[in-house]
């Protein structure tokens, strides 16, 4: 099993290296560069050239890539082109915010969807099963910004239970933070629950068709024990994978929700950085997102290996 995990880790590193090259070289394909994007309509040939020379944007691409890669390996992503401060210094508080919201949403969404999925599988075909399915499909079918606006309209603008703006700052106590970010959290939960819940239900039901489940019934076990103790362990692998995918989404895909709730996370930062061609920030965000994605997938792989006795104890 250790060999399998080692393989996964090595593959992950290779993927990361490829991702870094992909991120770097695609950013060089973007039309325009920082100088012209920063100045916008105010750009003239002279002030554009001045900024370009100052930032070393006139060096060959390959040199810049190797330079950046060796820096990144040491945790140094260079300085932001806009503020001249180290990129990591600017990203850190935002990354913390993003992780905070992601973990908050995950802590609610994962237990909730697994629970709902199992319940739906146990009560397959009942009103409960149908209701949960339709409800989840509904929330996933509506665009997330619309969900956000709906929640805002009712819970913030009309009833004023929650604040409209999810502005957080580092000195905020935890409970205030949880309260302020409640609406974006719920929005994210509504978006990801459907996927995980339906996958749980489907894989549990699939296992339920196996002969050994029939055996369990014949032994006289109650249905919930059959599902939880006999079916669920064998249904775990696909569930874990879907959970990993959705957790990755919580980190890398929430820019729209961040914008709607004015939440200072990584997504907004990446969008601004791309629009202004602040390449060091784009690259750092890209790489961090790649790391999160790859790490979560490796974790999912490892967990599915561990949940599978044939892989856990290979002959």
């Amino acid at each position, binding site marked *: 099993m250790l060999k399998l995990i080692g393989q996964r880790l090595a593959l992950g590193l290779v993927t990361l290296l490829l991702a870094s090259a992909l991120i770097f070289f695609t950013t060089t394909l*973007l*039309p325009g560069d920082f100088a*012209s994007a920063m100045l916008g309509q105010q750009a003239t040939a002279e*002030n554009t050239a001045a900024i370009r020379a100052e930032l070393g944007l006139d060096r060959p691409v390959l040199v810049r890539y190797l330079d950046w890669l060796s820096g990144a390996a040491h945790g140094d992503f260079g300085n932001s082109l806009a503020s001249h401060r180290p990129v990591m210094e600017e990203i850190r508080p935002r990354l913390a915010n993003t992780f905070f919201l992601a973990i908050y949403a995950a802590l609610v969404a994962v237990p909730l969807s697994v629970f709902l999925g199992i319940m739906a599988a146990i009560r397959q075909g009942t009103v409960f099963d149908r209701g949960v399915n339709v409800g989840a499909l509904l929330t996933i079918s509506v665009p997330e910004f619309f969900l956000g606006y709906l929640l805002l309209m009712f819970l913030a*603008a009309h009833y004023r239970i929650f604040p*409209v*703006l999810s502005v957080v*700052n580092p000195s905020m106590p935890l409970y205030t933070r949880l309260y302020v970010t409640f609406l974006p959290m719920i929005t994210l939960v509504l978006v990801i629950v459907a996927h995980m819940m339906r996958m749980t239900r489907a894989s549990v039901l699939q296992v339920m068709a196996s002969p050994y489940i029939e055996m369990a019934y014949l032994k006289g076990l109650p249905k919930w024990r059959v599902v939880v103790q006999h079916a669920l362990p064998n249904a775990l692998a696909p569930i874990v994978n879907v959970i990993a995918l959705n957790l990755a989404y919580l980190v890398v895909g929430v820019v729209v929700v961040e914008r*709607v709730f004015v939440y200072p996370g990584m997504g907004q930062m990446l969008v601004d950085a791309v629009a202004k061609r602040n390449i060091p920030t784009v690259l750092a965000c890209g790489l961090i997102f790649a790391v999160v994605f790859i790490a979560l997938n490796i974790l999912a792989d490892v967990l599915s290996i561990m949940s599978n006795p044939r892989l856990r104890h290979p002959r």
Partner: protein
Amino acid sequence: MDRWEELQQAALNGRLSRRQFMARAAALGVTTSLATGVLAKAGYADDTPKQGGTLNIGIAGGSTTDSLDPTTYTDSMAFNVAFAIMNQLVETDPNNKQIPSLFKSWEASDGATKWVFKVQEATFHNGKSLDAEDIVYSINLHRGEGSKSGAASGLKPITDVKATDKMEVTITLSEGDADFLYPISDYHVLVVPKDFKDWSHPIGTGAYTFDSYQPGVSASVKRYADHWNKERGHVDEVNFTCINDTAQRMNAIVSGQVDIIHRVDTATIDLIKAVPTLALVMAHGGYHAIYAARCDMDPFKDPNLRKAVKYAIDREQLLKALFNGYGAIGNDSPIPPSDPYFNKDLEQTKYDPDKAKFYLKKATGTTKIVLSASDAAFNGAVDAALLFQANAKAAGLDFDVKKEPADGFWDNVWLKAPFCESYWGGRPAATQMFTTAYKSDAAWNETGYKVEAFDKLLAEAKKTVEEDKRAPMIKELQKMVHDDGGAIIPAFKDWVDATATKVKGYKPHSMFDLCNGRAAEKVWIDEA
């Protein structure tokens, strides 16, 4: 704008007496309590500023790439925060007149090439007192080879900035400019102590001291007790929250989470009108959308084709579509009706398919037109291009609309395409607007307008100090661009802000929204 709004506007601008206002409001069937609310807002009731409280401003136009370095400002959030901390040399008042700030008086001589300024007594937040050397340093941040500043081109005519006395600065220009107070009041030109460089913690002479700033997220400033101007800086603390999302800005003010917003969404403006504790503040301004046809490129080399296009656009419709009617009709000159030099005698060009056809027939050479459109140019620009296209088609003028990506629009399309959408935020002085975009050698001459007579008259107007000679010249310049230029300007946009009624002293400003960026220091809070 409906009549009630126009009336409020008049009251806020101080054009009506209290009695006149109440009478007209009653005639429109407006309740007395609502009308008195507007009067209080207009400052009729109590004009004495109250000190204290916290002011929350919801502001758009912020980005994580912003910085408080004065040479870098491109949008509202950064310079609004900066204005609270640092002062300008000369300010623009609500009627577009230049008024003293850190330059307390001035005198021009030698055909407006030599300007002598007296310096205001003030202390910086670090205790140092302001002198002429600080100002020379602050101006020079924007000058010289390789300057990145947006103010650089406006300050180019400066040949020398000298401290001629401890409290006196002398500026020499390469050519006379009676309007030099306008470029020197550019929003980038802010005063810091000599050799100051730490832009993450700026120090100025402003009404507030720096407290915290997260680019594109939030900022907060605290009242500076030793501020030199006792008429500014009334609240204890001002918080800026960046809200780029239009719907969220509206939600934030309606729910009371912020006290002031700008760039009100005119499509959902009724949300604000429905709340009695909120007030709208509107001002006619110089912001305009433009279709720039290059006079130096085919097909618009032919003036007849330019004329044809000008008659083929329905400006009324575009004003409604673009700004929901909150604005003024354009007449193909960049000088807005709110400008004191606005030429009222120009005939308004109207949508007229017959005239369009007439000029189209007279046009020689190719008449194949492609309009480069992108929402980068202004909000709803692609839709506006399609509307224009439909107008023109009905007038027998067929053209193609080419959608350009918003990304890199200013870099790859603007100034390069023969027919292209664009916008201007407006300039405080008419001569400044013409110098920036209509003079033959202007870097941003987007219409490729190169007319010798125009350049000469512009230089003449800039040199002339006497008002009675100057005004006709500037009016003639507008006529030239209107008759023959490549700018097709459908409409000017109003600035629409919203405030809680407890915010007092908030006056509309024709130059820019949020009291031309100085709302934080001008207003006070009166809960009563």
